[in-house]
């Protein structure tokens, strides 16, 4: 592998060496037998309270350890494995998102939303398995590679002013994390196509067939992610392979045309939908390489409660009708703090084929209203102040209806506390004054030391690094509202530091609000087949609840960008004048000239030459005959000339006027 990193030495030798290695590795796989490359495709559908539908595609491929398999891959994309090997990535996540996740109506507490709700634009974080001083170099190379791989301007994350090093508040906490976002990156099909290329069946077969571009991008939210975990590290000697999770989350509006026509009374009925009506396509069988290939329909806790579904009666359900019979039904394991349970219907795609394509539809019969589970506190962030000089960022946290029930369950002793982590990165041109941090709890100003348990601040350096603020808040459980404000100066940039669209304003990336006390997980009742579904096992993992705030747009003062040209022009003029006069002074000999002028004056030539000489003398800035011709007389002569000129001009004008 050392040789691999230096390919310029003896190509031939390396080639043969690699071949040998690969061959040996391939043999070893056959010997072990249990570490095979695997691929799974799954789709999860979830009706949302505001008449929308969430579709979550989950593709997972796991690559066998590189030592056992070398550079040969059956299913696992080669580009990714090379990436992992070259940059020694332990874990990496790249997300392309368009639109905003609506935390209020789409929920924020389930594993689906806490891991798939991402800030708009591109977000990338990576954990490296290299020594500290190599991390930045690896990050730079990684951004460039990803940028080429996904046709996005991820390479802008290369400069130190754009990425940051979260110390402990970012969930995969470790010193080797690098985190960067591009809030204004536009996401479109050009990013999706390379992403699909990593799948073994592309979008030609299996569930990926549903990824119809127009219907995907018509959605309200679209987030395409790539999560890499290299389960073992080569430094420890054990290399157990790479897991690549590719997820695509879209929120769609089922048949929006019909929704307009229905009357106000029927508006509360959820729209009925089917796969073919949403995506315009059907699944005609699985991707042959995919081991589990299944479609799930998830009714979350609120919905099943609103439907009156319990563990007894979920088979015979009057409120909706499924067009296909589910193969299995999973019930969530009952948890301590909620009575209702989520229900998961599973459909296996394997059973369907070209002649009998898979399509699932849901028909609602009665209006249902429910609420998704929300994060303990709803976070929103906004700018305060006016003017071009100073402003403030405010993060306001409001308790949601969920909090009360949970708190009562959670607070056995009287003094319960709610821990909130805030991770905020600000670009360097937003000059934050960290001393101006103020905390308000329930509309009362509180001392910072009372509420903030831990704070880590790394101030921004101009053009070098962004400002990072990591705060751990300890709020009382009964908190209704809390607010954090911090003031900043709007920087005054040099002309070459402005971005191309400077007048658009500058983005402040989303802050991450996480609740380490809470873990979103959905444990479904134990079953053998469950172990095989990577999506469900991912749901079982305890992932911390986190939410992203809005991206902010700070209008900075912008110059008129034609200004440099004006400056150049004026400077050039001044220089020209200066050099001209300097040359003038250097060339002329004063005494000579005066003598010449005196001689001329003595000559007493005709009037016109006299006038000319006078004019030239005037222009040169010296008096011709100071005693005899005061300025008034010269102006008199001038006025005579002017009179003549006017006369001629008047004649010309009259001529023109009468003969045209």
């Amino acid at each position: 592998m050392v040789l691999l990193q230096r390919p310029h030495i003896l190509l031939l030798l390396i080639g043969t060496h690699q071949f040998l290695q690969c061959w040996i590795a391939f043999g070893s796989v056959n010997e072990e037998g249990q570490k095979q490359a695997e691929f799974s495709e799954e789709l999860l559908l979830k009706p949302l309270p505001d008449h929308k539908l969430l579709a979550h595609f989950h593709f997972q491929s796991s690559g066998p350890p590189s030592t056992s398999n070398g550079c040969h891959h059956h299913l696992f994309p080669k580009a990714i494995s090379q990436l992992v090997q070259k940059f020694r990535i332990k874990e990496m996540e790249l997300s392309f998102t368009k639109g905003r996740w609506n935390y209020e109506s789409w929920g924020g507490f389930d594993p689906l939303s806490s891991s798939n709700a991402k800030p708009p634009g591109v977000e990338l974080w990576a954990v490296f398995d290299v020594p500290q001083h190599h991390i930045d170099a690896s990050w730079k190379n990684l951004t460039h590679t990803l940028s080429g791989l996904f046709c996005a301007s991820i390479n802008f994350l290369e400069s130190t002013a754009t990425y940051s090093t979260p110390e402990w508040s970012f969930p995969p906490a470790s010193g080797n994390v690098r985190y960067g976002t591009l809030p204004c990156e536009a996401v479109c099909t050009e990013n999706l196509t390379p992403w699909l290329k990593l799948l073994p069946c592309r979008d030609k077969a299996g569930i990926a067939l549903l990824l119809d571009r127009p219907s995907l991008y018509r959605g309200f939210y679209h987030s395409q992610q790539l999560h890499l975990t290299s389960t073992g590290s080569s430094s420890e000697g054990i290399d157990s392979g790479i897991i690549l999770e590719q997820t695509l989350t879209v929120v769609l509006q089922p048949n929006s045309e019909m929704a307009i026509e229905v009357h106000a009374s029927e508006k509360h009925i959820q729209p009925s939908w089917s796969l073919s009506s949403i995506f315009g396509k059907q699944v005609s069988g699985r991707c042959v390489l995919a081991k589990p290939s299944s479609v799930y329909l998830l009714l979350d806790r609120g919905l099943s409660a609103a439907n009156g579904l319990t563990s007894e009666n979920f088979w015979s359900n009057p409120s909706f009708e499924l067009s296909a019979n589910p193969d299995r039904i999973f019930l969530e394991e009952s948890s301590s703090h909620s009575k209702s349970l989520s229900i998961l219907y599973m459909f296996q795609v394997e059973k369907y084929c070209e002649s009998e394509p898979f399509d699932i539809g849901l028909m609602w019969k009665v209006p249902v209203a429910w609420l998704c589970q929300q994060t303990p506190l709803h976070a929103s962030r906004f700018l305060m102040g006016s003017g071009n000089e100073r402003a403030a960022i405010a993060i306001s946290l409001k308790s949601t209806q969920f909090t009360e029930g949970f708190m009562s369950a959670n607070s056995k002793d009287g003094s319960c506390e709610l821990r909130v982590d805030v991770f905020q990165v600000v670009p360097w041109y937003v000059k934050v004054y960290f001393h101006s941090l103020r905390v308000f709890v329930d509309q009362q100003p509180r001392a910072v030391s009372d509420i903030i348990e831990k704070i880590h601040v790394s101030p921004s350096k101009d053009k070098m690094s962004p400002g990072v603020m990591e705060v751990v808040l300890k709020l009382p459980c009964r908190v209704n509202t809390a607010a954090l404000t911090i003031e900043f100066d709007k920087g005054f940039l040099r002309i070459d530091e402005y971005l191309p669209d400077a007048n658009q304003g500058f983005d402040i990336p989303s802050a991450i609000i996480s609740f380490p006390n809470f873990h979103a997980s959905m444990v479904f009742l134990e079953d053998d087949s469950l172990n095989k579904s990577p999506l469900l096992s991912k749901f079982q993992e305890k992932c911390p609840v986190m939410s992203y705030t809005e991206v902010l747009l700070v209008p900075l003062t912008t110059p008129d960008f034609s200004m440099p040209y004006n400056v150049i022009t004026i400077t050039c003029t001044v220089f020209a004048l200066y050099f001209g006069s300097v040359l003038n002074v250097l060339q002329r000999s004063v005494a000579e000239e005066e003598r010449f002028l005196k001689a001329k004056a003595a000559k007493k030539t005709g009037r016109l030459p006299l006038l000319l000489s006078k004019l030239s003398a005037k222009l040169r800035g010296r008096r011709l005959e100071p005693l005899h011709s005061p300025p008034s007389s010269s102006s008199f002569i001038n006025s005579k000339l002017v009179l003549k000129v006017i006369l001629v001009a008047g004649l010309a004008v009259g001529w023109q006027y009468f003969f045209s």
Partner: protein
Amino acid sequence: MAETKEKSLSDEKPKPRVRPIVRLGIFLISHSFLVSVVCCTAGVLALFLLPVLAKNTYISENALMPGSASPMLSNQHVSDGNRLVKDLTNPNSKSSETGIESHKIIAQYMLDLGAEVSFHKFHPQMNQFHPLHFFSSPVSGKIQENYSCSSYGINTVGIIRAPRGDGKEAIVLVTPYNALKSGFGEALSLGIAYSVFSLLTQVTWLAKDIIWLVADSQYGEYAAVAAWLREYQTPKFSSLSTPNAEMCPDVNNLFELKGHSISGSKFSNSFRRAGTMAAALVLKVRDQNEQFEDTISIYAEASNGQMPNLDLINVVNYLAVHRQGLRVNVEKLWPLLNSSWLKSLGEIFESLAKVAKSLYPKWKFGIPATEYVEGTATLASSLYYQALGVPTGPHGAFRDYQVDAITLEISPKFSLDKVWRNDILLRGGRLIEGVIRSVNNLLEKFHQSFFLYLLTSPSKFVSVGVYMIAFALLIAPLPMVAASLYVDANSSSNCSKGDSSTPSAITDTDEHGIAIRSWRWLNSAKLVFIVHLWGAIVSLLPYFISQIPDCSPTTSFMIWVLLSILSLLTLNSVLASPLACAKATQEKEWALVKSVTISSVFIGLGLMSVINFATAEIGALLMVPMCLLARPLKLDVRAGTLRSFCRLICNLVLGHIAFPPAAFFLLKGMLDGFGNANVGDFWMWVESLWAWNSATYLFIDLTWRAHAVVAHQSCMMFWNLDVLVLSL
């Protein structure tokens, strides 16, 4: 310059080289009288030429693309809007005396569309005079202690989130609505806004969030919008112990009723925000009908003469005229329309243009006389409202936060029966839709077009580069006259000194004498400073007078006058020594005093033109002739010639006209007739000015001081004369 001249006069022998620019300066200074007359006439003439020089507006920002998409607002949306109008004008909904019912109706309609709705309660806040808060950012006003539950307003706010947008920017649509006594026009404006809103919930092209603010105008339109903006931009997180609107039972009732009837969590009683505001439109429908055509009036002037970007007006104008067939109006000064002298001036310009065109066909600068008169009337009103510094509508509140905003007022042609109502809903709605779509297209904030301009018609404007010429011509004579006066004063005193003292002393202490003489202007500067100090005191007095409870405007004004005279006397007695000292040498010093006054006026006007051009222009029109003509009355009286007598009369008349109250009454008399002018009116006017933090107030103050200096100068002479007469 002056010193060079002085030097060149004093030591004639060595004949140093003088640069042409210096010679030009000396030439101008020595002919300052002629130059000032020429410049002033040219300045006034250029001002009257501005309507001729106005250029056609054009859309500068390419991204706006107004009218490139066909309007999507259909009859379906119009009938939706009609439904809301019907519900609002329904007498049942007005049964509640607080008008909460109609707010509920509006909120329910918004919710049905799937928008996020919230109520914003506010206490109307009186604008307070802060003596030193001019030009500072709008402060979140302090909450008064004695609020009762009865006096609060409710703004209903609906927000549509752009389906695929990132929520960084927002467009605001404001409809003022008074639930207690709403006219039909207000309901109609809500109908238009609702039909646009219902369209916008369905469209896919939305990139910016849309905020629809139904501003409760029972305490004034501006107050409601300003309160909402204050909460949006500078919220207060800490509520002190003052009674809050939430504690009032009525408001709680409102929320409870809403809360349980609505499924989903779209409604919340917390304040909702969208991103940075890109632009704001205030929509109004006038109750009385227009005679000829459906017209739409644009109001753009915000506080202190700030204007929204010209592109915003252009887009509205373009869409209204070329797409919806509405007539567009901007505010005119109506009395000017019928003035005959303006008409004849226009005819002169027209005929001149004709001659020029016949000479050279490419010279096409002429406009018809009627157009000229209209342009002048519009220009005058544009100048007047910018100079006044009081916003012409609720859009002014947005400008304080650097948001471009205008008010559109639709005046329909016919009585609003069913058909016409639908028509105006459709056309008004399509206009608003088009404007919102254009702004939605913007990637960058408004910056391409002009911010500094004067309108002469909805489609013509005078840019800063043109109108500054008129102003520059007007104030150009001031420094020259000041310089020439200074030089004169110095040289004359030099001569007089030479006569009185021994000739040898001059030769000995020549350098020293020059040094002393060159600092002598400080004496007169001190005098001017004292008068300015008095002016400052006088202008701060109203703040204290306004603290006196139960005072009618007339009495307040009287108190003001008395106090200012008193303060003058006090100042005079306290700082009597400089004045007395000045009095002794007054006869020779007047030129110096005038020169210092003129330079201070010049500096003041120059600074003011940067802050608010219109104020500076009007001020210059009043003050420049006054300053130039000012001369001790005694000298004129003593001279006794016809010329000096004319000058005396001019001096007196100008001096009185430029006195701010006098100017105000003259203007008011010209506009409304002299019959109903009242002393109290001036007080009210001044009060309104400082309430809006208008820079004009400062400026009036400046005018006052300058006037005081000039008047002081003239009157001193007059008093001196009296004293002389008495002593004789």
